[in-house]
C-alpha cells in the first residue's frame, strides 16, 4: 500500500515521540469529557470572579477592602475548577483502562513510558494554556466589575499579583498532573478521583484535630495548603512562601507520576 510504504525508516526517538504526541493530542481532542471539564473550569473561574466583583464591594467595609487579599479572592473559582482539572487529569489515563482502549493503545505503542510521557506532555500543555488563560480572565473580570476607586482594585504590575494569577494556572496544571499520576497508579476513574479529592481535602480536616503546634508545623506541607501559596499575594502566618510552597505541591505530583511511570512498565495491561 503506497500510503504506508515509506515508513520503514531508521529509528529516531524524536520522530517517534512526535508521532505519539500527535496521537495523544488527537485522543484528547476527540472525547467530550475534555470539553466538558475544561468548560466547567473556565466557567467557574470567570463567572465566580465576575460575581464576586459585582457583589463584594457592597458587602464588605472599606477597611476590609483595603486589607483583603483581593487577587486571591478573585481566583475563588479555583475551588471548583481544581476538581474539573483533577478529574480531567485522571480521565486522560483511566478512561483508556475503563474502556479497553488501553489494549489498542499499547499494541500501537508498546513503549509504555513513551506513551505515558506523551499523555503527560499533551495534558500539561493543554492544562497550562486553559489554566493560565482562564485565571487571567477571572482576574480581569473581577477587576472589570469593581467600581472605580474601589479598595480591592489591583494591577497586574503590583507586587505578587501577576505571579498569583499565572500561578493559579500552574496550580491547576500540577493538580491535574497529580490526578494523571494517581490515575496511572490506580487505573480506575472512580478510585483515582476519590483518592485525589481525599488527598486534597481530607488532610486539612484531619490536621484540624491535632494540637495547634502540630498543625502549625505539618499544615504548611499538606498538598492544598502548599499549592495555594502560589495564589496568595498577602502572605499568611504558618504557610510556606509562594514558590517553596508550590515546590512542595509539585513534589506530590512528581511522586505520583514517578510511581505511575514505574508501575506502567511492570504491570500487565
Amino acid at each position, binding site marked *: 500500500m503506497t500510503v*504506508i510504504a515509506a515508513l520503514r525508516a531508521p529509528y529516531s526517538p524524536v520522530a517517534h515521540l512526535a508521532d505519539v504526541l500527535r496521537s495523544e493530542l488527537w485522543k484528547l481532542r476527540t472525547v467530550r469529557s475534555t470539553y466538558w471539564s475544561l468548560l466547567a473550569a473556565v466557567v467557574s473561574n470567570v463567572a465566580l470572579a465576575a460575581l464576586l466583583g459585582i457583589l463584594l464591594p457592597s458587602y464588605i467595609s472599606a477597611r476590609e477592602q483595603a486589607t483583603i487579599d483581593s487577587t486571591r479572592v478573585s481566583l475563588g473559582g479555583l475551588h471548583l475548577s481544581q476538581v474539573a482539572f483533577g478529574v480531567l487529569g485522571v480521565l486522560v489515563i483511566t478512561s483508556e483502562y475503563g474502556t479497553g482502549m488501553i489494549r489498542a493503545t499499547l*499494541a500501537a505503542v508498546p513503549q509504555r513510558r513513551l506513551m505515558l510521557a506523551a499523555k503527560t506532555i499533551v495534558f500539561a500543555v493543554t492544562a497550562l494554556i486553559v489554566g493560565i488563560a482562564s485565571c487571567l480572565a477571572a482576574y480581569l473580570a473581577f477587576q472589570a466589575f469593581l467600581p472605580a476607586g474601589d479598595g480591592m482594585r489591583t494591577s497586574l504590575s503590583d507586587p505578587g499579583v501577576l505571579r498569583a494569577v499565572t500561578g493559579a494556572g500552574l496550580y491547576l496544571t500540577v493538580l491535574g498532573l497529580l490526578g494523571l499520576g494517581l490515575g496511572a497508579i490506580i487505573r480506575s476513574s472512580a478510585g483515582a478521583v476519590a483518592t485525589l479529592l481525599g488527598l486534597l481535602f481530607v488532610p486539612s480536616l484531619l490536621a484540624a484535630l491535632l494540637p495547634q503546634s502540630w498543625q502549625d508545623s505539618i499544615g504548611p506541607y499538606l498538598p492544598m495548603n502548599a499549592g495555594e501559596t502560589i495564589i496568595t499575594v498577602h502572605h499568611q502566618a504558618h504557610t510556606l512562601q509562594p514558590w517553596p510552597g508550590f515546590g512542595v505541591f509539585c513534589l506530590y505530583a512528581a511522586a505520583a507520576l514517578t510511581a505511575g511511570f514505574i508501575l506502567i512498565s511492570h504491570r500487565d495491561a
Partner: protein
Amino acid sequence: MIEASGLSKRYGATLAVDGLSFAVPPGQVTGFLGPNGAGKSTTMRLILGLDAPSSGSVTVSGRPYAAFRRPLLEVGAMLEAKAFHGGRSARNHLLCLALSNGISPARVEQVLDLVGLRSAARKRAGGFSLGMGQRLGIAAALLGDPPVLILDEPVNGLDPEGVLWIRNLLKSLAAEGRTVLLSSHLMSEMSLTADRLIIIGRGRLIAQTTIKDFLTGGPGNFVRVRSPQSSALAALLESRGITVTRQPGNALRVTGAASDAVGEVARANGLTLQELSEHQTSLEDRYMELTSDSVDYRTAEGAAVPVPNPN
C-alpha cells in the same frame, strides 16, 4: 511467522499458559482452538506484550513485540471486541492509532471502506452493535497493512454475511503470504477457515497439525454394522484382529477394517446385515474427544512440524 517457546503465564495460583511452544507459519490461516478458559486470549496477550510471560518467550517475525517501533506495520491484532473509547467516532479511533504509527489519514479511509464502516465512520463507537465493533477492531488490525494478523474470536457477534466476509477476507490475506492466527472455541468455524490447527487445553498444547492430518490421523474412521447375530459377527471380526465395540440395538462399531471386509465376513458366514455404513469422525468429535479427556492433555502423536512458507 509467530514463534512461542516454553511460554508460561501464571496469575496468582492459576497457570493460565503452561509451557506452550508452537509456530504459526506465513501463507496459511492457523486456527487457535481450545475450550473457553484454555488460555487462548492469554497467549495472544503475551504475543502482543500486553502481559509479560512468567517464563519462556514469543516472537513475531523473529522479534519480541516491544522491539517494534511501528508495530501496526508488523502485526495487526484484534483482541476483545471493544478495545476502543465509546465516546470517539470510528474514524477518530482509527486516526488515534494511525497517528501513533505514522500511518496517513488516507489509509484510515481505505480500511473504513474495506470493513464497510464508511457510513458509520462519524458515529460514536459506543453505540455500535457487537458486529460493527468487530468490524472496527478488524479495521484497526488492518491499518498498517501488516504481514501478521492475530484475531481473537473475530466472527463473534457477526451475522451470517459478516461471518462469510471474515472467512473470505482471512483466506485472501493468507493467500497473499501473510501469517494469520485466528482463535475460536468453535471447531465448525475452524474447519471452514483454517488450514492448520493449534489446539490447547488448560494452557497446554494438545495438538499442532494441519486440518487434514488432524481429521485423518487419529482413530477417526469407523464402520457401523447392525445385525441380529451381532455377537457372532463380533467374535468373527475379533478373531481377525479387528477392534469391535458393542453398542446398543445389536450394533457394532468396528475400527481397523473397511466396510467391504466386514460385509465379506458376514456373507461368508451367512449372517444377516441390517446396516453397514462407513463413518468419519467430524472435526467437532475429534476436538471434543481431545479436549474433554484430561488424559489426552499432551501433544498428539505425529503432530506435524510446521514448515515455514518459502515466501
